[in-house]
């Protein structure tokens, strides 16, 4: 009894597992289990978990992947692809506080897009992502305004005096 118990527990050292887990690519980490364990740790019951899965539209589309630290995080975006991924990657890399940013679509048949952000000390990956999203919004605002302005200018030019 005591023997089997100790054997059971021996390889389950949390730190060891963490090392193993972090070496795995995030797309291979069993996120579903982690989610549920999180819910359990927070005292949520199973019904809540099921509800979360059933509600489709209002669920979170951005998720912090396991193995993330404040300055080095991976995010999973649901139902996003290269359209957002590449532009976001570019704009986040523009941030001088960001050491590294890349995006990937782990598998073409899964509607998921992952973004990895590593920042220098003094800021966090989440902040860098938020800043990136806002910066991209700013770019969109400018392009939108410039397009409308160019339209007006073009119409003026094309109407003969």
């Amino acid at each position: 009894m005591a023997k089997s118990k100790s054997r059971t527990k021996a390889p389950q050292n949390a730190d060891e597992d963490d090392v193993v887990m972090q070496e795995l690519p995030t797309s291979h980490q069993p996120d579903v289990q982690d989610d549920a364990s999180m819910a359990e740790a927070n005292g949520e019951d199973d019904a809540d978990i099921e509800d979360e899965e059933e509600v489709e539209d209002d669920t979170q589309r951005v998720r912090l992947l396991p193995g993330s630290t404040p300055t080095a995080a991976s995010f999973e975006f649901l139902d996003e692809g290269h359209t957002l991924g590449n532009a976001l990657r570019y704009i986040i890399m523009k941030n001088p506080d960001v050491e590294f940013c890349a995006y990937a679509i782990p598998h073409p048949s899964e509607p998921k897009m992952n973004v990895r952000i590593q920042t220098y000390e003094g800021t966090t990956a989440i902040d860098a992502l938020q800043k990136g999203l806002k910066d991209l919004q700013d770019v969109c605002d400018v392009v939108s305004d410039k397009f409308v302005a160019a339209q007006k200018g073009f119409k003026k030019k094309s109407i003969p005096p």
Partner: protein
Amino acid sequence: MDYDPMAMDEIESKGPVIKISQADTVRVKFELSNADISFANSLRRVMLAEIPTIAIDLVEIEDNSSVLADEFIAHRLGLIPLNAEGIDELQYSRDCDCEEYCDHCSVKLTLHARCTGDENMQVVARDLVPSGDRINRVLGTPIINESSDGLGPLIMKLRPGQEIKLSCIAKKGIAKEHAKWAAPSAIGFEYDPHNKLHHLDMWYETDAKLEWPPSEYADWEEPPQEGEKFDFNAVPDRFYFNVETAGNIPPDAIVTQGIKVIQEKLASMIKDLGETEGGENGDYNGPRSPEYNGGGGDGWQDQGFTTPYGNGGNQSSWGGGAGGTTPYGTTPYGGAGQDNGGW
């Protein structure tokens, strides 16, 4: 964090610039410069695939004595361009409160034609008659270009005595789901007309220069000098768009709508992230960084890597349960001493 995202490099110091070179009811040609290719491509992709329009999605065929199969006709009907003016006020059927479809989420069109003469008859898009309470007078009406003599696209032909009677439900959708919802009919996207960046490898018989006609934008950019060395640091920064419509949305509106779709994506992401941060773990599913956990650093990591069903304690999510020695040692279905597998 004090910097201007649009004024990082010297090249981009002015921020994005747009020049329109042609604009009419069918197309808008413009140049986007001082922008990165990633943004230009996002704009192209979003215009192609994610602007909502309206197209026939359900067809109920009452009578069809033509030579064409029902499903063949249904497919052709789906591809007929419909006016999408006011599409913002139309709901997606899946989000609507109704059972299947209603006036808030669809437009009904009917088609009834019988060939009574002794010559073959053409059934065209003009014969599709919208009915019911519509959001406005044009939403869902088939697009009839002047070039078709006011008839619109040909749907099918009927021989004398043949008849077609059907009703269609047009719904809101995006081209990511089906190309029939595409807002533009085509988008031209081009940069680096002289191929200075070598992003293209031109196939040729004897001389690529002679065999490939110059781009219409070739005059807009400096051709490479004789013996000019390849610039390894050069990146594209002038993009030539040609947004063309079939008539469902005006071409300039496609561009503004496209930017709007990107904006909405970003806004929903920012909102999601905000929810992630706020609240006492709220809807947030994943492990969170210590500062958002409220607790110490280790608690955060430990929680992230435990199995939900395991026998308590810190177990690997891979190996899981009781009998697991190596992470991969036990199968989820085998009876290796697990009550609920790690997988």
